[in-house]
């Protein structure tokens, strides 16, 4: 059974002020509930001011992800996001512990535990940028990132996607199919993307298409990651 952790932010008071969001709790807690309903274990559920940037930052950069995001098998983050022209993703927090934003260049996932990371935030696997440049240094045993290109809706009507994905993922369904099916919205034009690492091209494509929670693929040591494969619907 997998260990699950979620962090979500709807409220952004100063000094981390941004426009408020409304349903990040729905997507993250829905994901958590869906996974728990399939027998997996909730490790943490931090929302708003209790969600900390340092939970995502590697100790190599002074962070504490070893005790939080990198201490679970499957993590889900829901908030504002953006990827800049330098191909660095920023995820936004509502409290400054230690920073208001976590950035992909300070992420090293899987050097302890994390295998799968969902980022329910805008521009999180942004295909108009170089997604390999953005994320390659994060894969230290991490197998897959499940995220979005362009903007993703924050609305009640699409807020069930975290739960819908989790009930399939938690049941041993193919992760990419589950993410693309459940998070794609024709109505709101939400475009989900998944990205997997591999030793070779065929390995990366195989993992992207067939990876399942508790499936047969092992972790890939950082030095052996040579390829990435990604998939999306538009």
């Amino acid at each position: 059974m997998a260990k699950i952790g979620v962090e979500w932010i709807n409220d952004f008071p100063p000094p981390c002020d941004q426009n408020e969001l409304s349903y990040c709790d729905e997507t993250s807690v829905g994901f958590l509930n869906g996974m728990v309903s399939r027998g997996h274990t909730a490790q943490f559920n931090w929302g708003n001011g209790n969600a900390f940037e340092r939970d995502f930052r590697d100790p190599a950069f002074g962070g504490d992800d070893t005790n939080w995001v990198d201490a679970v098998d499957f993590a889900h983050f829901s908030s504002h996001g953006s990827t800049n022209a330098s191909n660095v993703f920023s995820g936004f927090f509502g409290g400054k512990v230690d920073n208001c934003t976590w950035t992909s260049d300070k992420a090293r996932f899987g050097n302890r535990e994390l295998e799968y990371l969902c980022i329910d935030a805008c521009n999180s696997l942004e295909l108009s940028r170089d997604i390999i440049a953005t994320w390659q240094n994060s894969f230290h045993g991490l197998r897959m990132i499940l995220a979005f290109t362009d903007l993703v809706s924050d609305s009640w009507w699409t807020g069930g996607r975290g739960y819908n994905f989790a009930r399939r993922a938690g049941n041993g369904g193919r992760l990419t199919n589950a993410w693309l099916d459940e998070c794609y919205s024709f109505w709101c034009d939400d475009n989900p993307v998944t990205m997997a690492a591999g030793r070779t091209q065929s390995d990366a494509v195989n993992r992207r298409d067939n990876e399942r929670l508790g499936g047969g693929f092992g972790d890939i040591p950082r030095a052996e990651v040579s390829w990435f494969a990604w998939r999306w619907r538009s």
Partner: protein
Amino acid sequence: MTFQFEAKLPRKLPEALTVYALDKPKVSNASLLDLAKKFGLTGQGKDFISSSDSLGYLEGRWGLEVNRVSGAISYTHLDRYGIETEKAFDLSDARADGVARKFLDRAALFKSGTMKLRRVTHMHGASADLESRKVTEKLLDAGVVYGRLVDDQPVDGPGGFSMVHIDPAAEVVGLRSIWRPLGKRLGKVKIKPPEAAMEGLRKRAEKFRGDTTVVKATFGYFELGPIDSQTSIEPVYAFVYIVRDGEVAMKSAYLAHAGDKTFGTLLGKRRFIPGAQRARRQ
């Protein structure tokens, strides 16, 4: 701060529309077998998978699942849906539409004249090595989206559609559909002009920092997603908008009843309660 409509509502709106009940779906082993036969399976399988929210059926390499709350259908070939093959998908949109329509016609899932092609989507696959970063990209399928029509009016929202997946061999390898059974007439509503709905959205936008752009504006019926209960279907004005504030943007939706009488709320309660959180030690 600016507020602008990039998308426009239709100029001609009907004067009145009927509001219908949506029947609770009947989900049972027998109903799944009936559905399986419509899709061309034998219906002789014995493998059912029951959970609190869905009922599934397996026959050969096909999986069929129906959501107990909405009746949403998921039908997939377990080995072929979403799997990259040697051959890239190269069918034209018209051909993909033809294959999908033939499948839907044969299955007779929907009454004639109640669906309209909305878009042909594609699943894309790409890969690149770390050294050269040369990206190889391939189309993997077509997802042909048909929107529902009720009394010739479009149905918008996370439901009210059927998507048929066609693989590179021009065969149907999946279907996803959220199309609740239409029930009895509940009444007729006169259609209000859209100005009040647009003003409601403008007022909401006043609360945001940055520039708000309405990127989608529709009039029609509205159907919810797979896990939500819905007992009636009625006309709404629906808007999707984007707020850009420096490097950070957000996207959301706004709905307003279009009828002079309402039969249900458009916004449901929170589905997943996060629970009280004690302040965490920093």
